[in-house]
Each structure stands twice: as structure tokens, then as C-alpha cells.
């Protein structure tokens, strides 16, 4: 698939075509910037464009190619990062007005450096929920990020800009983070692939934190191969992140024979509507799963994640919640203050339950390699929707879009989110959940679904030319 400017959409396809001499990096980056200039006003995925930097990096890459240098694997691939990643030369906002006067980052975050080191070209920073506390990217400071497949609907969050930028065809890969579902929820609502690796797999160095016990780094792409190449490029044992595991590189592309797959029922069916359950059944069937199993005490795992998040997040922001309450995001500031007040006994209990549940879920993985569950209870809600109806239960949208992702990330398990079709035409993803440090199993399951055309990343939308900004040139 190619863009209207005849550049490929996929990351690896771009790298191959660039290495083949089909176009210059400057031509590609100018076309990428022109598409964003023309259409992002409709999506609002970007909060900053690193135009000058991108063109400098493109020219440097073109010079390397002209010298006959060996090109790195992601040479020429445009990418962008959620605006909690440090990007040299611009302020790291983390979606918040209170950081608006922060000095520009002096250097890139570790994972940004990993991608640029592989030849990828930084295009800009992406919209998100304030301080990553939300599932809808309805950011009152930057404006809501809109779903490219239906601009009246949410892109999901908190990495909404990261998923939307890929779904819109602006860039082929992006970086995001996932504390409770912030990669998997927007991947589901925008219909792109996403990876949330094992807790501790990828370095958090140079990112604005949210919940140290639960923060995971992740990525988005339009295909499993692109996502795997990105994930592999990001891996390294970073001594600057105390939670980063000191493990050797373990490729996403390990070869496998049969996969033992089960579908998660119980909690994961009860909190999923027809679209979500159908997606889970379709994925399980395509992967040859015949059994439905129960995740151990999913409601306790979800509750533990909620308590730990509220307490750590609330404590992190106490000072500016006191001093600058009026400038904080109205959708999350009161929840953060409530979290800061939680009794210590509740939070310690949550951490103990988390450790106990870890033992029980590992027992489940003695029988199965991959567990399948929906990533969200429903397809994208409309922006501004307060409530959703799930099997007759009326639930608040904003704290509950992640109720199927929270029990999984609470235990630090690696997940690939794979987008599926629904009857409504809007996408929804399944979670392909693997044991700790076995991202390769989740990638293998995703690849099988993609090969069978069960998993499907919808093509980028055709944007409404009538909504072009004056002077924009697509």
C-alpha cells in the first residue's frame, strides 16, 4: 500500500524502498510533513512538529546513502512519540499545562535515541491525556484527539495521539506508554497493532513518570512485522532505569511450532459487549483455541491496579495539585487527589495481592502459551460520552475503558493488541497475552491472525478536503 504521494505506508516497506534508492529521505519527510500539515487539524494527534530537526536528519541520512554507507534497519522511517518522551529541543509537556514553561529537553529519551540510532526520523510529539491518567485523550489543554476512522469518536488513551497518528497514515510507527491500558485501549479504538511488553523490558529513562510500579513503554504500527522490528530496535538493558531488566536481547521473531491458546472467559466476557466478545471468539478460533479459562481474580487484579495507580499518581502530583489545581485537567484532578488520600493499608494490600496473583497466573501459563481477551469493552465511544452500556450495566466511560486491560498490566504480562473487524465497521482489538518475557509468543499469535486476515489494520481514511486549513497543501 502506498500514500497518495507514492511512498509506502509501512515502516519496513519504507526502509526497503529507501535503501533501494526509490526516493530521498528529504522527499519522504517533506511529504510526511505536508500530509500532517494538511490533515492533522482534523485528528489533533500532534502537539508539536519537529520540522527542522526532521529535515536535518533526512539530509544527513541522504548523505550517508550517497557515500555508500551501510544503512541501519529503520533508515528513513518517520516516527513520533507521545509527548511524555523527552525530545531534544522541545518541552516535555506530558499533556499538561503546568509543564508549559518547562525548559526544552536537553536530550532525547532512551527509546527515542534507540529509534534514531536505527535510522528512523523524529517527526514530532503526540497528544495524550494529562499525565497519562485517562483512557480517552480528551485533553482540555491540547484539545481532544479524534479517531481517524470517525472524527466524532475518541481515539482512546492515554496514548491517543500515538495510535491516531498511525491509523491516520501520518507516520508508520509511534512510541507510547501503558500503565493500565494506554497502549492497548487506543490501539483497539483506532485499529492498529500495539505492544505493551513485560514490565521492565523497555527503558523508561527520559520519560515523564506516572506510576513507577506499573509504567510500561510500548509502540504502535500498522503490521506485525513493523511492530516487531520496532520493538526489537527498542530493547536494551538500561542501567539508568532501575526497573529495566538486565536481560539479553530476545527477538520478537523467534520461530514456533504449535501454540497452546485459551480464551479468557468470566470477567472478560461479563465486561465486553457483543462486538468485543465476537472479536475474542474469532481470534481464539483462528488460533485453534478450544478452551475458555478464568483469569485468577481479575476484579482483584483490576482493583489493585486502580489503587496503586491512584496512590502513586496522586502522591507524585500532590504539590502542584495543591498549588495549581485550577490549571490541572478537570477530568482527572479530583481522582488524583482522592488517590493521594488513600489509606496506606489499602495500597500495601494492593501490592501484596498483586504479588500473590502473579504466582497464580504463572500457573495458568504452565498450560497455555497465549491467552486471548478483548482489549476494550466496546468500540470507540463518542467524544464527550459520559457513560457506556455493557451488558445492561451502565458504566462511566473514562475510568472504565481500561477495565479489561488493567488486570493484565497489573501483573506485568506482555501483550500484543491485534485489531479486528466488527459489524459496525469500527475496529476493536484483542489482547494476545503471554507469560513474562515471552513477547515472542504474543507476536507469533498476532502474526498468525494477520496472515489469516483475521487481524486487520484498516487503511488510513480519506480526509475531507473541505475541512483543509486555509493554505494547507496536501
Amino acid at each position: 500500500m502506498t500514500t497518495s504521494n507514492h511512498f509506502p505506508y509501512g515502516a519496513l516497506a519504507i526502509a526497503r524502498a529507501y535503501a533501494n534508492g526509490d526516493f530521498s529521505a528529504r522527499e519522504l519527510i517533506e511529504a510526511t510533513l505536508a500530509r500532517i500539515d494538511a490533515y492533522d487539524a482534523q485528528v489533533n494527534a500532534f502537539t508539536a512538529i519537529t520540522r527542522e530537526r526532521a529535515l536535518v536528519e533526512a539530509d544527513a541520512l541522504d548523505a550517508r546513502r550517497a557515500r555508500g554507507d551501510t544503512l541501519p534497519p529503520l533508515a528513513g522511517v518517520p516516527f513520533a512519540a507521545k509527548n511524555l518522551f523527552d525530545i531534544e529541543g522541545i518541552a516535555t509537556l506530558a499533556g499538561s499545562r503546568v509543564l508549559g514553561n518547562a525548559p526544552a529537553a536537553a536530550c532525547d529519551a532512551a527509546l527515542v535515541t534507540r529509534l534514531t540510532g536505527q535510522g528512523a526520523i523524529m517527526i514530532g510529539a503526540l497528544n495524550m491525556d494529562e499525565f497519562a491518567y485517562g483512557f480517552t485523550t480528551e485533553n482540555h489543554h491540547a484539545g481532544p484527539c479524534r479517531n481517524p476512522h470517525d472524527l466524532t469518536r475518541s481515539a482512546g488513551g492515554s496514548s491517543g495521539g500515538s495510535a491516531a497518528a498511525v491509523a491516520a497514515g501520518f507516520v508508520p510507527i509511534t512510541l507510547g506508554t501503558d500503565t493500565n491500558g494506554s497502549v492497548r485501549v487506543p490501539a483497539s479504538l483506532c485499529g492498529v497493532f500495539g505492544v505493551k511488553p513485560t514490565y521492565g523490558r523497555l527503558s523508561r529513562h527520559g520519560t515523564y513518570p506516572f506510576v513507577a510500579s506499573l509504567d510500561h513503554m510500548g509502540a504502535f504500527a500498522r503490521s506485525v512485522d513493523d511492530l516487531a522490528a520496532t520493538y526489537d530496535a527498542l530493547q536494551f538493558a538500561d542501567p539508568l532505569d532501575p526497573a529495566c531488566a538486565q536481560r539479553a536481547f530476545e527477538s520478537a521473531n523467534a520461530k514456533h511450532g504449535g501454540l497452546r491458546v485459551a480464551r479468557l472467559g468470566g470477567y472478560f466476557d461479563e465486561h465486553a459487549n457483543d462486538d468485543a466478545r465476537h472479536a475474542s471468539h474469532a481470534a481464539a478460533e483462528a488460533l485453534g483455541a478450544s478452551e475458555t479459562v478464568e483469569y485468577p481474580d481479575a476484579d482483584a487484579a483490576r482493583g489493585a491496579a486502580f489503587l496503586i495507580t491512584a496512590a502513586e499518581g496522586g502522591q507524585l502530583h500532590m504539590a502542584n495539585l495543591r498549588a495549581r489545581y485550577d490549571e490541572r485537567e478537570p477530568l482527572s484532578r479530583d481522582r488524583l487527589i482522592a488517590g493521594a488520600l488513600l489509606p496506606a493499608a489499602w495500597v500495601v494490600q494492593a501490592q501484596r495481592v498483586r504479588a500473590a496473583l502473579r504466582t497464580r497466573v504463572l500457573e495458568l501459563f504452565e498450560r497455555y502459551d497465549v491467552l486471548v481477551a478483548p482489549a476494550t469493552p466496546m468500540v470507540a465511544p463518542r467524544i464527550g460520552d459520559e457513560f457506556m452500556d455493557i451488558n445492561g450495566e451502565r458504566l462511566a466511560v473514562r475510568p472504565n475503558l481500561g477495565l479489561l486491560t488493567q488486570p493484565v498490566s497489573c501483573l506485568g504480562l506482555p501483550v500484543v493488541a491485534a485489531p479486528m473487524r466488527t459489524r459496525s465497521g469500527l475496529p476493536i482489538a484483542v489482547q494476545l497475552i503471554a507469560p513474562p518475557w515471552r513477547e515472542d509468543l504474543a507476536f507469533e499469535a498476532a502474526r498468525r491472525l494477520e496472515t489469516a486476515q483475521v487481524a486487520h489494520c484498516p487503511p488510513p481514511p480519506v480526509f475531507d478536503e473541505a475541512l483543509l486549513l486555509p493554505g494547507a497543501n496536501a
Partner: protein
Amino acid sequence: MSSSIDAYVEAALALHFPALSDEAAARVKAQFVRIAQLAAPVLAYHVDADDEPAPVYRP
């Protein structure tokens, strides 16, 4: 339960956020009640004395 939560939140706000407006305090109370509902299965979960917390989680 709700009266004890009200009393707890008011006391905790007086300690940590003494300048918060009454309107904001009411919203914080509502949020606390929601979190308390989600805490119920966690607090009911039996842990043994040797089930240690996982402050730095290493799967």
C-alpha cells in the same frame, strides 16, 4: 460506610489539601467512593503472612 468515608476524606483533605474549595472537596469525595468500591475485592482477598508486597515488580 459512606458517613465514615465522608469523615475520613474530610480529615485527610484537612491534612493534605486544606485550601481546597467545598465544591472540589465534594468531587474528591465522589471519586474516593468510586475507588473504595474498586478496592473492595482487593481488601477481601486473603493474603498469607508471607505474601510480601511487590513495590518493585519483577515478573
